[in-house]
């Protein structure tokens, strides 16, 4: 039987606010345990939550970026469950009336096509604390620094049909929240994590199969591998005549398998109700307008502009617009290179990225600045140095020896483009090699390369190759007899 997979993702992204969603406590990552947990975060009696305006603005920005409805009135609700890292016994979230509903993003498929993926909703909520099970032998340690950190939970429609599509969608959302500056998207630190709802059904069926939920997938690779494993598992169960049980499962990356997490009887009885401590959140026209004005250029808009203004191909555009830092770097490095933007694109995705990967540096920390690279590209463009010499200059720039002009000057790397000077060398080389010159004139055109090599050797590699070719041809053809 042929099977069809249906996947929906719930992405939790931490919002990059300075303070928590309902308290004035800091959100800095990596602080000493419990030094960033105030009375509100600790759930002390008598405290009241006060909503962070920036968290609201960030949620609205996301909604605008996915073309969603920004709900003018949304309501906070309590999600009730007991766990030691949730001091209040409930998480403040949004349930029936979320702040953002009905949006979509377009993802690029591997076959070159595109797919629009619906986003059911995005709602604001607070994060829980962290439980540390490995620190003590018979106890669990609780760090409540993370409790109350603002989260935006982004819920997709069940419209993803493979593990690869799910990972592509997750990357798209990751790119978007980083462009919007609403999250650092740091997956190692847990700022961006994902749960996946997965079911399979016989191809052509319209009714959904029973789903399993995979929890806490915190890398793009694990999302793909965990979903792949889970699809296989469910198909095996069904083909053996069994039934898929609705349950929460955890992905074990060491064993590359999923296994059940919570017992069924406790499953999802959260008894949501509106939080009486918080009034409904209303977003008026003025607030919405001010947020609209602060919207940065979106990835889709930049992609369009890169195609139009720089004439770049779709593959290069994907690489050069992966993050807003990447896009900004490219644009600054390509400034003034009219008609030669491909050169800038090649250097950005070639030498620059190779060096960044080699040294494990992010583009924001690149020792070669966009202006430095632009300077270098200008010198290639105006013929001062060859592309090959430029690589040497780039390495020197990377090592901190100064800007391109300084390095070219101190190392004496200028190409010899002076036609008169070059022609003298060419003439000499031809005169010194009468045998080869004769063979060339006899039809062995391939020997041109030999002569170019000789000229390069004579000039210490600094001759402008294009000029050398032209002069050699002229000299060899002219002296024929």
């Amino acid at each position, binding site marked *: 039987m042929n099977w069809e997979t249906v996947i929906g993702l719930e992405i939790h992204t931490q919002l990059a*606010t*300075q*303070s928590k969603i309902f*308290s*004035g*406590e*800091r959100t800095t990552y990596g602080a*000493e*345990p*419990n*030094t*960033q*947990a*105030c*009375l509100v975060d*600790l759930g002390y009696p008598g405290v009241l939550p*006060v*909503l*962070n*305006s*920036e*968290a*609201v603005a960030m949620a609205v920005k996301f909604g605008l970026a996915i073309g969603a409805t920004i709900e003018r*009135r949304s*309501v906070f609700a309590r999600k*009730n469950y*007991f*766990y*030691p890292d949730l001091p209040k016994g409930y998480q403040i979230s949004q349930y*029936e*009336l979320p702040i953002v509903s009905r949006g979509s993003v377009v993802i690029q498929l591997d076959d070159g096509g595109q797919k629009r993926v619906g986003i059911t909703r995005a709602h604001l909520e607070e994060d829980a604390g962290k*439980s*540390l*099970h490995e*620190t*003590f032998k*018979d*106890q*669990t*340690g*609780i*760090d*409540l620094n993370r409790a109350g950190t603002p989260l935006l939970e982004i819920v997709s429609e069940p419209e993803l049909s493979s593990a690869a599509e799910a990972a592509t969608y997750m990357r798209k959302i990751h790119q978007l929240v980083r462009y919007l500056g609403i999250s650092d998207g740091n997956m190692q630190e847990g700022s961006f994590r994902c749960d996946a709802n997965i079911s399979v059904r016989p191809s052509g069926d319209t009714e959904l199969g029973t789903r399993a939920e995979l929890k806490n997938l915190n890398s793009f690779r694990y999302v793909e591998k965990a979903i792949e494993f889970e699809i296989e598992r469910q198909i095996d169960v069904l083909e053996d005549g069994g039934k898929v049980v609705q349950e929460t499962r*955890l992905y074990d990356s060491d064993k590359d398998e999923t296994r059940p*997490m*919570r017992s069924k009887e406790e499953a999802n*009885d959260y*008894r949501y109700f*509106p939080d*009486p401590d*918080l*009034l*409904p*959140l*209303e977003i008026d026209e003025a607030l919405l307008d001010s947020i609209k004005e602060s919207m940065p250029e979106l990835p889709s808009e930049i992609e369009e502009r890169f195609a139009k203004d720089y004439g770049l191909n779709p593959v290069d555009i994907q690489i050069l617009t992966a993050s807003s830092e990447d896009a900004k770097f490219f644009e600054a490095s390509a400034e003034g290179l009219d008609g030669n933007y491909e050169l800038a694109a090649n250097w950005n995705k070639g030498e620059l990225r190779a060096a960044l990967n080699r040294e494990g540096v992010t583009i924001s920390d690149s020792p070669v600045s966009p202006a430095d690279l632009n300077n270098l590209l200008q010198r290639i463009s105006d013929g001062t140095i060859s592309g090959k010499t430029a690589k040497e200059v780039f390495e020197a720039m990377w090592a901190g020896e100064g800007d391109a002009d300084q390095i070219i000057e101190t190392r004496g790397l200028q190409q010899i483009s002076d036609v008169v000077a070059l022609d003298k060398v060419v003439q000499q080389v031809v005169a010194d090699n009468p045998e080869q010159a004769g063979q060339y004139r006899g039809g062995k055109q391939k020997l041109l390369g030999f002569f170019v090599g000789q000229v390069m050797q004579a000039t210490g590699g600094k001759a402008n190759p294009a000029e050398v070719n032209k002069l050699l041809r002229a000299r060899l053809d002219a002296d024929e007899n």
Partner: protein
Amino acid sequence: MGLSDKDVQHIAKLARLEVSDGQIADYVEKLTQILDMVDALKEVDTTEVLPLAHPLHMSQRLRADEPTEKNQRDLFQANAEDVKQGLYTVPRVIE
């Protein structure tokens, strides 16, 4: 609307309340009375009425995104039953 013994046991478990077998019948009766009262309210026609999220006719005030708290860990942890290495410690819980 009638509740079963099982319903009461389930609610008690979710709320982490210990209810002995002898108490169940009493809870079934009292909780059923509360639910019956809610059922009585359902007789009012509310088709034109929006759900009420809060009795006050106000909307949520917002706070500026500025840290205002100081670290008072020692003070807060003086109330805790057990603390180690800055962590609140509880009997081991693991999935």
